[in-house]
């Protein structure tokens, strides 16, 4: 009797589980309201030109990640508002596996420009782009060499240089309980690859620009989603005299921040402004302004100046990278340090300081 009752019960559990598991396939979020609202005035002013249509393929992590994807989408939304372009965000539960399908569907839907935020799309994009010569494609963080692809690259090394320079000044400062007198700072990467070392090398060069005697400890967590490992690595760096640790390891970095709080030292955030995660313990964040880049690309499309087959680089000069406003920590460091960082920023923009890009070696 009991066993017979069990079977339907188990089915129920399985069905509930399956329903719970299958995250609702998010229908492509159409941005009609924003687009049409703003499109009307432009349409009356310039009646001859139909608004440009832009699709944005959202990367792993999806919208709502409070970081990369959301930031990129906000740039696109701004473009819709300011320029009157029609925009569409394309979300998928598996942007990596469905790469080719997503790109083809978008290309066939009549967009003028299809930008993908997903790094892994470099391979399917190289296959798909030649089939749609009238559509422009954009990809972020990696270069795809096709005549109708625009590659958007950030000079992360330049922003990291500033982070390293600031860290080198702060690590020996007097009167700050979060630092020790040792000339040691650290950096943790997710995996050892050119894409990650680009950050670390820029950071190290920035530190050595301030003081060649600064020791920069480096380690890799072998993954971007292991906060416990991130914490262990950071604690080990603190043991060796480091007091500021730069994280370039995604979710692993959450553990770096926890260690900073626990040991009353500093961490440095990456990509988006992470200073709020542990207020006061994150010295600054090295920002990548994906929103600025997306807005710029779309406005070039709108002007008719966007061409395929090029790599557009966003560095300090283009305001593509930079340091966070240091909302919680700017009173911890003397103004002269911040002035010095700004001075260095201008020197990099002027080409007086050249920062190594390890991906180009």
């Amino acid at each position, binding site marked *: 009797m009991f066993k017979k009752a069990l079977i339907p019960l188990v089915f129920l559990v399985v069905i509930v589980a399956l329903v719970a598991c299958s995250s609702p396939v998010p229908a492509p979020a159409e941005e009609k309201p924003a687009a049409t609202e703003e499109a009307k005035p432009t349409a009356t002013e310039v009646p001859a030109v139909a608004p440009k249509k832009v699709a944005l393929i959202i990367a792993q992590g999806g919208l709502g990640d409070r970081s990369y994807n959301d930031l990129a989408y906000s740039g696109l939304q701004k473009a819709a508002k300011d320029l009157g372009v029609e925009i569409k965000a394309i979300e998928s539960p598996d942007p990596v596996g469905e790469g080719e399908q997503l790109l083809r569907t978008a290309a066939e839907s009549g967009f003028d420009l299809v930008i993908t935020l997903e790094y892994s799309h470099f391979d399917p994009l190289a296959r798909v782009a030649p089939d749609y010569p009238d559509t422009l494609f954009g990809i972020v963080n990696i270069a795809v060499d096709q005549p109708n692809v625009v590659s958007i690259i950030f000079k992360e090394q330049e922003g990291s240089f500033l982070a390293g320079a600031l860290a080198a000044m702060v690590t020996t400062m007097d009167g700050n309980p979060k630092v020790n007198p040792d000339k040691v700072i650290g950096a943790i990467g997710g995996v050892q690859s050119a894409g990650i070392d680009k950050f670390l090398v820029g950071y190290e060069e920035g530190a050595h620009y301030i003081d060649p005697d600064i020791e920069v400890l480096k380690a890799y967590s072998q993954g971007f*989603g292991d906060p416990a490992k991130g914490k262990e690595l950071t604690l*080990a760096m603190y043991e060796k005299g480091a007091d500021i640790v730069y994280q370039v390891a995604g979710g692993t970095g959450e553990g770096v921040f926890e260690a900073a709080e626990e040991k009353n030292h500093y961490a440095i955030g990456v990509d988006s402004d992470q200073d709020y995660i542990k207020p006061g313990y994150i010295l600054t964040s090295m920002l990548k302004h994906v929103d600025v880049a997306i807005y710029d690309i779309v406005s070039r499309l709108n002007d008719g100046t966007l061409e395929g087959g090029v790599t557009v680089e966003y560095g300090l000069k283009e305001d593509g990278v930079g340091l966070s406003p240091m909302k919680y920590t700017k009173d911890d460091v003397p103004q002269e340090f911040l002035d010095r960082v700004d001075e260095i920023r201008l020197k990099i923009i002027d080409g007086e300081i050249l920062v190594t890009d390890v991906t180009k070696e």
Partner: protein
Amino acid sequence: MEALTNVLFGTLRVSTPLLLAGMAVLLSQQINMLNIAIEGLMLAGAFSAVVVGAFLGNVWLGLLASMLFAMLFTLIFALFVIDLKANLIVAGLALNILAGGLLAYLLVVWFNTRGVYSPGTLDKLPLITIPIIDQIPFLGAVFSGHGVLTYVSWLSVIFTSLLLYRTPLGTHMRAVGEHKEAAETAGIPVRRVQYTALLIGGAMAGLAGAQLAIGDLTLFSENMTNGRGFIAMAAVFFGAARPGLTALGCLLFGLFDALQIRLQIGTGIPPQLPQMLPYLIVVGTLTMIAVRRKLKGTSI
């Protein structure tokens, strides 16, 4: 000297979730129902510890929730493998996938966040200073000042050992694992023994997850266990499902993990070499055990 105490202190911290998960897997192996779902159970424990701890504003209730929620998940596993005679591996993997997907989904619907949930209001489980040992130079620096669950993890080894070898229930568990039908004939309530062993293990797996989420950190992140459950499983094979030897296996892995982290930093050694170390040790020891068994001509 300080470097040594740092490594050993780190070893005990890294080993904590391994020991707890190891004892959970060990109990399941003792009844011959290897709990592959260990990763999912740990994740369930980690998730509920953070969510309940933050919601009720009490980290101890979070700890309790981690055990209960992991036991609830274990119940599903037990139902499938004990009553519905499902294949252990399939049921275990299914539960791991279920846990991963369900928790990620709950993060989105409850907290509108992806990847990481870190409620700023959550306290960490307290660190404990042991009164007398604390004063002894070397021992104090290594053994005192750990989180509560580190000490619980040591107790879990003693508990498991006593349970298995000093209680009638433990004898029943071993008998069921040895030969289920014979145990049944002898009048042992097989089903109840199997459920009990898996559920006790489930509670420990929940604690292993809680150690990551509210003992070491104060957050939940998707797949934050990162294979620690499977490492613990390797330790169970290393220790031939004996509590003492399994614990030794967990501590060894913890030692080499703590060591590799420090070998990467400021030594100039290419990071790939030390990173291999803990896994190399696992493969190496498992090979040694296999060879020894072959020479002895016994299995397990």
